Structures are given as C-alpha cells and as structure tokens.
C-alpha cells in the first residue's frame, strides 16, 4: 500500500498501485528533460510502459498558467495555487491512473519544485506543505544537483536568460543576470533543504549527460526490477563494443584533458561470463505481472 504525505483525496485508493513513481527534480537547466528523453526510450525497450509528465502539462490548467504568465499581474499566492491546480489535475488524471495500470511514471519535477518555488516567493512552508500533503510518496526522487557556477555557462551559451527562471518577479530592479544568480542561489538553498528533509537521491548533474544517465539507469533498475539487478545478466556485455563506444564518445568530447578512466578500465580482460539465466535480460523484457 502506498502512502501520501498526510492527507488523502476523496475517492483515491492507495492500494493496487503497482507502477513505479520516479521523480526527476532539480533547478532550471540541471538537465532534467535531457535525462527523461534518454530514460523513456530505454525503459520502453526494457518493456516498461512509461508515462512522462511535467509541470504545466495539465489539460485543465496548463494553458491558463501560460496565459497568466504572459502578463505581469500574476500574484504569488495565485501563482502557487495555479501550479497546485495543474499538479493535482495531472496527479489525479494521469499519474495515479498510470500507476494503477502498472506504468513507470517519470515525472519532470514533482511537489518539491512547486514547494521550493512557493517558499522562495515568501509563502509559508507549512501552508504549501499542507496543500501537497495529498501527494503520493514516490519510489525515488533523483535530485540533479548543479552549482550555479556550472549552470551559468549552460544557460548563457544555449537558451539565454528567461524572465521566470531569473526570478524577475521576485527581484525586480536587478538586471536579468543578477536576477538569475540571486534567484537560482535562493532556489538551490531551498532545494538542498528539501533534499535533506525528503531524503532525495542526489545526483551530480555537472557531469556529462551520458554519465548522469548511466548512473540514473543503474538506480532506476534497482527500483523497477530488483530481482533482475541481483541476478547475473544472461548475455555478458561485449567488452569490445563498449570500448569502441567509449572511445568514440571520448573523442567527441573536445577539451577533455583527463584520460577516460572508464575506457582504460575496459581494456582489461573481460570478466568471466556469468552462468546462463533464461529468465534474465534478453527474453524477459515483457511487462511484469
């Protein structure tokens, strides 16, 4: 039986929710959507049905929030509640039904981002926690953590500064760069507090996307398929193919001064192949019963 953070919505059964709820959290630009775009096809290949969802994607309130943000008269309490409406609509209409149907739900942000944003905007933490107390506790929260020092180049040299990501509603009078730094630093501090309180799994998001993804895959496998992780793989990984892939990848990265330890490591003789398990990877990737 699943648990919520305290309260229960009317008509919501907490039993028979066999799916897995996996949350990817992190500040703006931490690479959440990149990871979800990598994880979703991988999970589907393994035979898991996947629902990916994220903020402002609700049928009910998504458009309303976008319209409201075009104007400069969206108050802070209103903003917090508009996002709560969007979240609960997706929660009741997408997330919970998917969990009931046995899906892996990959959610780009969850209640934690919503709480962090509200708290840095001066909302009473107890108030915002009470609202989201109806949410289900997830199976895992991966917090892609990145320091502003590393975040800045990503933002400056890709998409540029965004009004809301720079907290310009919070820190008017600063230029957008100063606003970005102040806002993201404040947000990061709040995230770190939440990470401790809610026991997030902290992932170093300053590493390259591939490394982060490999780490996430390993952790996610432990959640969705603990048996398979413990059992030895039926087909041993091809060390030469891996080496080749690593070398290609290492060459693609320009300016990498450090030797690629992973590539060097795979030059060692391959481990002896594990005993054959017909139920493991390869033919066992259908939906679990």
């Amino acid at each position, binding site marked *: 039986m699943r648990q919520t953070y305290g309260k229960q*919505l009317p008509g919501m059964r907490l039993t028979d929710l066999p799916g897995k709820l996996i949350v990817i959290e992190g500040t703006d630009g931490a690479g959440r959507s990149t990871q979800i775009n990598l994880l979703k096809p991988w999970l589907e290949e393994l035979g898991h049905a996947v629902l990916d969802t994220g903020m402002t994607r609700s049928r009910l309130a998504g458009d*309303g929030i976008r319209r409201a943000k075009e104007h400069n008269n969206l*108050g*802070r309490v209103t903003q917090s509640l508009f996002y709560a409406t969007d979240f609960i609509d997706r929660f009741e209409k997408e997330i919970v039904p998917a969990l009931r149907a046995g899906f892996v739900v990959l959610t780009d942000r969850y209640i934690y981002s919503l709480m962090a944003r509200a708290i840095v905007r001066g909302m*009473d933490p107890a*108030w915002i926690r009470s*609202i989201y107390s109806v949410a289900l506790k997830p199976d895992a929260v991966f917090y892609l953590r990145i320091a502003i020092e590393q975040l800045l180049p990503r933002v400056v040299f890709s998409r540029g500064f965004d009004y809301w990501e720079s907290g310009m509603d919070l820190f008017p009078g600063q230029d957008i760069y100063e606003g970005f730094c102040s806002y993201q630093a*404040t947000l990061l501090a709040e995230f770190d507090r939440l990470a401790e309180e809610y026991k997030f799994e902290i992932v170093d998001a300053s590493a390259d996307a591939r490394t982060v993804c490999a780490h996430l895959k390993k952790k996610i496998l432990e959640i969705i398929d603990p048996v398979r992780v413990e059992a030895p793989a039926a087909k041993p990984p091809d060390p030469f193919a891996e080496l080749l892939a690593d070398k290609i990848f290492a060459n693609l990265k320009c300016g990498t001064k450090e030797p690629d330890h992973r590539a060097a490591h795979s030059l060692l003789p391959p481990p002896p192949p594990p005993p054959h398990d017909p139920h493991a990877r390869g033919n066992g990737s259908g939906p679990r019963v």
Partner: protein
Amino acid sequence: MGISTSIHVGPFEILSPPKPSVSSVQRYGQHNLPGRLFVVEGIDGSGKSTQLSLLHKWLEARGYGVVFSEWNSSPLVKDTTRLGKKKKLLTPATFSLVHATDFADRTEHSILPFLKAGAIVLCDRYIYTAFARDAARGMDGDWVRDLYGFAVKPTAAFYFRVPLETAIGRLVGARDGFKYYEAGLDLGLTLDAEDSFRLFQGRILEEYESMIPEFGLTVIDATMPVEKQQEQVRQIVQSHLANAKELRVQP
C-alpha cells in the same frame, strides 16, 4: 547584452525570502488594515446577493468608497474554471483548487489592496462557500481551511439562513434549470437535477450550520421580508463603521 565570454562567478548572495504573506485565517484576522470587509454567505436562492446589492447602494449613497468582488470572477483564472466546468474535467480536488486560485487572485488584486487603501470591500460569497461546498464534495475540512489560510478575515460575515424548500421554490421560478456543478451533479448522487440540487444543497446547509459557531457568522433569517433583513444588515454594518470616518470619499 555585452556578456564577456569569460564568466566571473562570485559568491552569490542568498536573498532572504520576502516576509510570508500567507498565514492562518485567525492570524490574518489580527490585521490592522484601514478598510472594512463585509461578506454574504448562503445557499443559492437565499437572497444574499439582493441584500448585498442593497447594502452597496446604501454605503455609496453615504459617501463611502465601496468595492465589490464576486465569487469566481478572477479574469486570470475564469477561463480555466470555465474550461473545467464545460468539459467536466473537475474532480472535488481540482474544483476546490481552481476556486482557491480564483479567490487568491481576487485577494491579491481586488481585496487586499483596497482594504489597505481604506475602502469598504463587499464580497458575494467568501471562503465559507468553499468550505461548505468542498466538504460536501468529500474534501477534508482541515485541508480546505489550510488552503484558504491566506484569506483576510472579514469584518463581518452574514449568513442568510433559509430552508431548502424555500430556496428551491425561489430558484425554480427565477431560473431555467439547475446547473451541473451547482446541483452537485458531478457527485453522481442522482441523475435528476432538482433531486441532486436538493441533496447537495442539503449537505451544504449542514456545513453552514456548523460554521456559524466556528467562524462567528452573523445569522440573518432570510425568510423575513427583504426590507427587514436589510435593516438588520445595515445596523450591524453601521456598528463597524463607527471609527471609520476616514473611509468617506468626497462626493
């Protein structure tokens, strides 16, 4: 923008967040805003809107700056509410939240600033409507009370008490049919709109009764003649205007 390619990144100042603007109804009740807030509550057909409009005219005639705010009227949120109702997307929880969002926008834009400016703010329905309706839809009472924790406590909240059959009699004559959500048809209690309205509004009446002592609502017997009710309302409002002379605007 003249950004140099070498970025110097210094230690970032973590700004202390602005002071919390959200607290409990009780705490907000201690606010010392110069304005006055009067709200009317009651089921559909109780006559509360008629009474509020008469109060509005009386206050204006006496030279007060009066602002009126109606339930479910925020320009930022009403499209979302309309979409939800039209496409029947709303669950008890999202019904509750979308109305709280609407109320938040009106609090931030139509209620608080005017109370700060010293106006008399009149609200047709207030948080008690949400408490009653959401509870009737099965939402947890404490959760909904927390949700509206940012609301300003009214100077006086009038509850127009009327028996269900009287209200239904007034509505049947005055309107064409009962609306889906107003009749609580979303709850699937019964398929007949009038029966559903009766069941749903009956639950709401029970909620209102229990809120009279909880929030100190001022009960007006809404079966009395309109004039008699208005006389009582004006008397009570008058008693709260005693030290509010600065509210008067020059004609």
